[in-house]
Every structure is written in C-alpha cells, then in structure tokens.
C-alpha cells in the first residue's frame, strides 16, 4: 500500500489521460464496432482494419489506448470499491484493482506483439 500511496500522482495522471482518451474515442468505437458492426450496418473489412491496426501508427496507438483504458477503469474501480465497501475495503480494493490492470496490460501487450 505504501508503494501505491507513493505512486498516487502517477496513477492519477494515467487515470486522467485515460479518461480523456476514453471520452474522445470510446463512444465512437463501441458504436462502430459493437453496435453498428455487430448489426452489420458498418462494413468492418478485415484487410483494411488489420493494416490499420498493425501499422507503425496503429500498434502504439492501440497499446496506449487500451492500456490507458484499463488503468483508468481499474483506478476508478478502486474508488468505487472503497465508497461502497468502506475503509476496510481500501487496501484489498486497491490490490485487486491494480492487479486487474496489470493482467489486462499484459494481455494487451501479448495481443499486440502477435498482431
């Protein structure tokens, strides 16, 4: 917990940066991929998207966006757990949330390396 307290400014900056990314991009992405794509209204062509995602710009962008998203959400999750669970939930909530963020980061890196 001491380490987490020392890193609070960093965690908050990642949370903040992640928040702006999310606000800018996530609604569009979810609408495009999840809803319009899922319903077949938007032609999500494999070739084009693969090229886009695996390009020199695409990969770092995806890495930044997804990792920012996960850390943002996990940091916020930590506060949610604390608010609902009270002081006793402070340390377990923080451990759980940031562990989840680390796992998600690892998964993102793995996926992008393969891409």
């Amino acid at each position, binding site marked *: 917990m001491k380490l987490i307290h020392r890193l609070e*400014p*960093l965690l908050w900056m990642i949370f903040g940066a992640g928040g702006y990314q999310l606000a800018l991009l996530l609604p569009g992405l979810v609408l495009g991929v999840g809803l319009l794509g899922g319903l077949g209204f938007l032609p999500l062509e494999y070739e084009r998207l693969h090229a886009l995602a695996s390009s020199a710009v695409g990969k770092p962008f995806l890495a930044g966006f997804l990792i920012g998203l996960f850390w943002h959400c996990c940091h*916020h999750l930590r*506060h949610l757990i*604390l*608010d609902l*669970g*009270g*002081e006793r939930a*402070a340390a377990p909530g923080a451990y759980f949330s940031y562990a989840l963020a680390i796992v998600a980061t690892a998964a993102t890196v793995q996926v992008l390396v393969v891409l």
Partner: protein
Amino acid sequence: METQTRKFEILRYRPEEQSEPEFRSYEVPCMPDWVVLDALNAIKDDIDPTLSHRWSCRMGVCGSCGMLVNGRPVLTCAAFVRDYEGTIRVEPLSNFPIVRDLVVELDDFVHKIQSVKPWIVRKLEKDVEQGEYRQSPAQLEEFKQFSMCINCALCYAACPVLASEPDFVGPAAIALGHRYNLDSRDEGNAERYDAMHGHNGVWSCSYANECSQVCPKHVDPAMAVNQAKLTGALQWTGILPKKSMT
C-alpha cells in the same frame, strides 16, 4: 402575520441519558418568514430547553449552524421553513461524531484546516513601512473564490469519501491550501505539499462533486481539490517546480 404549526423531527442525543441518538417530534408554530434555525430557537426558548445546537450570526457567514435538513447539509439560518413540505427532519452534520443533539465534534476538522498551513509563507517578510504587496485584480481573482470558505463543514458532511476514509484532509482544507498556493504573495507551496498531496491528501478524492453542490458560499471545493491534483501531479513529475513563485 399568522403562524402555521409545523412538525419537526429532530435527532436528539444526550449522552448522559441516551445510549444512541433518536428522533423526537416537535410541533412548532412558525411565522411565514422563518428559517429552520428560528424554529430550533423557538423550541429551545418555549418548548424544550434541553435542545442544544450552535448558532450565531444568523446571516450565513459565521458558519455555526450547519445541519442536515431533510437529509441535505445546509445552513439552517438560510433554510426557509416555507420551502419544505410536510415534516421537517433536522439532524446533526453527517461524517462527524455527535457530541450532543445537533452539536458535532469539530476538533478534527479544525486540525485538518491547520494541517495545510493556511497562512502566507515567505522567505523574506516585507516591512509594513514599505507598504502593500502589489497584486493585480487578475491575480486576486485567481484565488478569491477559494478564500470565501466560512468553515461551516457542510462539504465534509456531504463528502462520500470522508464516510469511508475519515482521515481524508477534505474539501475545505484543501481548498484553503490551494487558495494560499494560488496567492501571488505566497511562497509556501513546498511546505504544503505533504499535507495536500500526501497519503490523505487530494488523491483520496474521487470527484463526487458533492462538496461543491452543498457549499453555501459557492466556493467550489471540488474544483480546488482537482486543480490541486493537476498541480500536484505536475510537481511530482518535476514539470512544475514545487516552489512556484511569481
């Protein structure tokens, strides 16, 4: 003017007689222009002299009479009886231990205020004979809003973070520290860093914005806390010097 009898439910706690707080009802004849505090005083004067509550200026500036009225933290001197329907429920401020009836324990709050070193810190003090420091209206404007806090502690009663983390320095204290950090006359930024950006400082805030919703003086403590996060983070990285000074 004609009085209208209104029902009040007041949380009573007399530690010498009660183990737990409980509500007690009062029927109070109220004048149409009364505030909740007037009704409390009427109870004290004419119905039940054992009711204890704090009050003083009755004009919304001394900060004594903050309580929960129908669940919302307000200054009772500025809460008109006519604006409430039905039974009016008055409780002591939440997030504070109750000393008695509507009186809460404020020592911890005052310690928190003190912890951010809310005074001008300078390496070299100017002599009075040399006159005032020059400060432009724009420089004044920058911190003025945050100097309007009357220490009524309504924001502490509203803050969901304080409910789970009682050691959080809290909105009013951070706003005050921020006010001095923004003051062009001050050089105490670094000395306030630990209190404001340490373990129980700004990072505990999850920006519920409740403090700003209930602030009777429109100080917007949430703005102060979250601006302080940005400055604190930039100071942590070294982008901003800790001793920022004009």
